[in-house]
């Protein structure tokens, strides 16, 4: 149930940024780039924890895929912000994401074996679901630069693939 709470907290945050946008404080491209990049880095860290702890071959394969794909997306993001001469800007959503991921990591650190595998993969399903919803409803529509919008749109398709992949792995532990 913890992951549901996490997803709920992030959803609340995005709702808050949605409200902010209704008030005219729309997310800027430097903020959007920071949120997307941070979300990717956090999933890489989660994957690295899984690679240290898990012995399940499907979980390990999934974690390796996450590490590789999110690095590939973030490399593109870095190249793009450099090209556009944009400096990603830290913001409350990025900060909250980072804090919640740290809490999750600490919680998962206490688990081992199947309990860890199940908690990790359940969180991956929830995390991707939340990030994908945020991309679709908030980040992509708010992005002004077309190249940033395009990269986020391709990212969304990649992460939707991850969500489905995570659901397949999670089904093993039901």
């Amino acid at each position: 149930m913890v992951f549901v709470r996490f997803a709920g907290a992030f959803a609340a945050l995005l709702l808050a940024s949605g409200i902010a946008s209704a008030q005219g404080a729309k997310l800027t491209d430097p903020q959007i780039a920071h949120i997307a990049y941070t979300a990717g880095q956090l999933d890489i860290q989660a994957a690295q924890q899984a690679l240290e702890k898990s012995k399940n071959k499907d979980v390990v394969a999934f974690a390796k895929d996450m590490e590789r794909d999110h690095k590939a997306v973030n490399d593109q993001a870095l190249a793009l912000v450099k090209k556009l001469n944009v400096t990603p800007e830290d913001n409350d959503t990025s900060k909250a994401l980072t804090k919640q991921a740290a809490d999750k990591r600490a919680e998962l650190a206490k688990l081992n074996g199947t309990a860890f595998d199940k908690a990790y993969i359940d969180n991956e399903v929830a995390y991707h679901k939340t990030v994908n919803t945020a991309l679709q409803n908030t980040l992509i529509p708010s992005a002004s630069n077309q190249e940033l919008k395009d990269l986020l749109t391709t990212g969304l398709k990649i992460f939707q693939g991850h969500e489905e992949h995570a659901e397949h792995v999670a089904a093993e532990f039901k």
Partner: protein
Amino acid sequence: MRHGMAVGMLGALLLALMVGSARAEVIQIQIEKLAFTPRQVSAHVGDTIQWVNADFVAHTATARNGAWDVMIPPNATKSFVLKADGTVDYYCKFHPNMTGQVMVAK
């Protein structure tokens, strides 16, 4: 005489290879923005399927029946020769939202 025979055999071999390659087709499938295009292709046993990955992430073409599993790195092209007939549904192991189908005739 022996030399002449050897040349003749070589010629026959080359002819056989040329006829063979004229019959077998190379069918190209583009991978871009997480989609196989065309999604559905028709082929014959002996044809080569060539996947051209224009994405910056790796993909796979993995047959659901387990017949083949081709890894396609980012910005790379990978080929596979069809050895059996039948309709094969395939997907990407890393992004299962990507699916395709190869219909292979004898």
